[in-house]
């Protein structure tokens, strides 16, 4: 009889706390969104499943010694996983459209205003006593506006590890929602005639330029902002491997098998942060709302910058490509293209929007460097 009672005591039903039950349901919801609604499935499937695993009562997968906790310590606490992913992203990025029209870098810069405006928003909310965010927390929440998963996770792991779960979930789910969040803002800020602006055909970019660019970027980072060097250094390395075309084997591994392997463990490790005591909190709700605001402001400032730029430079710039400045490669560029086609079925903006799109990746990595430098200890 004692044995039976003991067996009952170790079952999940007996040990389950209400919080864990809710978190398992949230994990299932993420899985549903990923599988049925196709929301960034590559990340939300591992994150959602990790979230379910982390909340199995009594198993302790996310506690010290548990396998998810080990993934977290090895990969995220050390900063390794986001950086390896960034290397893969670099190896998949084509800087051609950016090099053909370097002015689009300004759009990538403007869209980062979303990061800093949201940071300010989080600080104001703390000031008003609604939430209790420190400056580091506010900075980590703001980076959601960078619309760049690995960058968000990297910054959150450095500045606010306890908010990492919520920040990563917000960041990846909003990236999936880009086609829903951006168009209304873009339509509101542009006129029909502006949306019809045709851009000149991009010039051909030579192989030599593409090889030199990552090195140039690296040197600038090294001189001006060493705090962004881990992110942009890995990014440049990945890109150089791709463009130099003499290490195709390494480049292929980086952009396929390596990034896939790391994504699995990154997702599970993020899932381990979806524990009831840190996730079921008012702060999470605040992060979700602020993240949405960050996206909206980033999109708006990109579009506005594109309108200003269109007035200043000779070659016409369609304001729709401004919204692509919030990285989220290549989703944001596709949205720009789609809206352009709606106004003029012969106006293909995709390649033009890829310029600000990759500029946004550089911009948010630079912003991340500044945040870590300023708000870090």
């Amino acid at each position, binding site marked *: 009889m004692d044995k039976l009672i003991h067996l009952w005591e170790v079952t999940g039903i007996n040990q389950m706390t209400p919080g864990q039950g809710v978190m398992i349901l949230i994990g299932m919801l993420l899985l549903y969104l990923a599988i049925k609604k196709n929301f960034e499935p590559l990340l939300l499937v591992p994150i959602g499943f990790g979230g379910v695993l982390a909340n199995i009562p009594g198993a302790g997968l996310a506690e010290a010694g548990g396998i998810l906790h080990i993934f977290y310590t090895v990969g995220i606490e050390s900063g390794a996983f986001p950086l390896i992913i960034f290397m893969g992203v670099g190896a998949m990025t084509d800087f051609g459209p*950016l*090099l053909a029209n*370097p*002015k689009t*870098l*300004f759009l*990538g*810069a403007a869209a*980062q*205003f979303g*990061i*800093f*405006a949201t*940071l*300010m928003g*989080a*600080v*104001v909310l*703390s*000031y008003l006593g609604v939430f209790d965010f*420190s*400056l580091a927390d*506010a*900075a980590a929440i703001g980076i959601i506006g960078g619309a760049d998963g690995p960058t968000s996770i990297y910054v959150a792991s450095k500045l606010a590890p306890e908010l990492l779960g919520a920040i990563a979930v917000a960041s990846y789910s909003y990236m999936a929602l880009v086609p829903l969040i951006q168009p209304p803002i873009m339509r509101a800020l542009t006129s029909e005639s502006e949306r019809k602006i045709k851009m000149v055909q991009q010039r051909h*970019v*030579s*192989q*030599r*330029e593409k090889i*030199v*660019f990552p090195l*140039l*970027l690296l040197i*600038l980072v090294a001189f*001006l*902002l060493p705090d962004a060097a881990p992110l942009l250094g890995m990014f440049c390395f990945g890109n150089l491997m791709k463009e*130099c*075309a*003499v290490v*195709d084997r390494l480049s292929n591994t980086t952009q396929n098998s390596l990034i896939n392997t790391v994504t699995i463990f990154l997702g599970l490790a993020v899932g381990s942060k979806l524990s009831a005591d840190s996730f079921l909190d008012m702060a999470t709700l605040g992060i979700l709302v602020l993240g949405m605001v960050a996206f909206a402001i980033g999109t708006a400032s990109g579009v506005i910058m594109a309108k200003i730029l269109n007035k200043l430079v000779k070659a016409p710039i369609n304001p729709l490509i401004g919204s692509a400045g919030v990285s989220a490669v290549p989703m944001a560029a596709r949205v720009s293209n789609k809206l352009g086609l709606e106004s003029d079925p012969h106006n293909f903006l995709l390649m033009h929007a890829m310029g600000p799109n990759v*500029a946004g990746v*550089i*911009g948010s990595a*630079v*912003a991340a460097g*500044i*945040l870590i430098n*300023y*708000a870090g200890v």
Partner: protein
Amino acid sequence: MTTSNLMSEGLNLMLVGMGFVFVFLTLLVFATSLMSKIITRYEKDVGTLPEEGIPAPTAVISQAMSSRQHANDDKNLITVLSAAIHKFRSRHK
């Protein structure tokens, strides 16, 4: 950190951060344009790189030559051998 201090820190970070992002990317715009100009001018004299990467010319040339030589050798060898076989067979009928 007191709350009013937090506000001023936040404002500070916003201005410094946004300013720096713009300064950095403006520098990058100039550096990139300059780099493109120099390379375009250089490539007018030298020619562009092939898209699929830089070939290793010496190795490729020597390989091509040696394979052609091989083909010639083989031809000679086959002629000699078939002549010998022909003679051998005609003698041992």
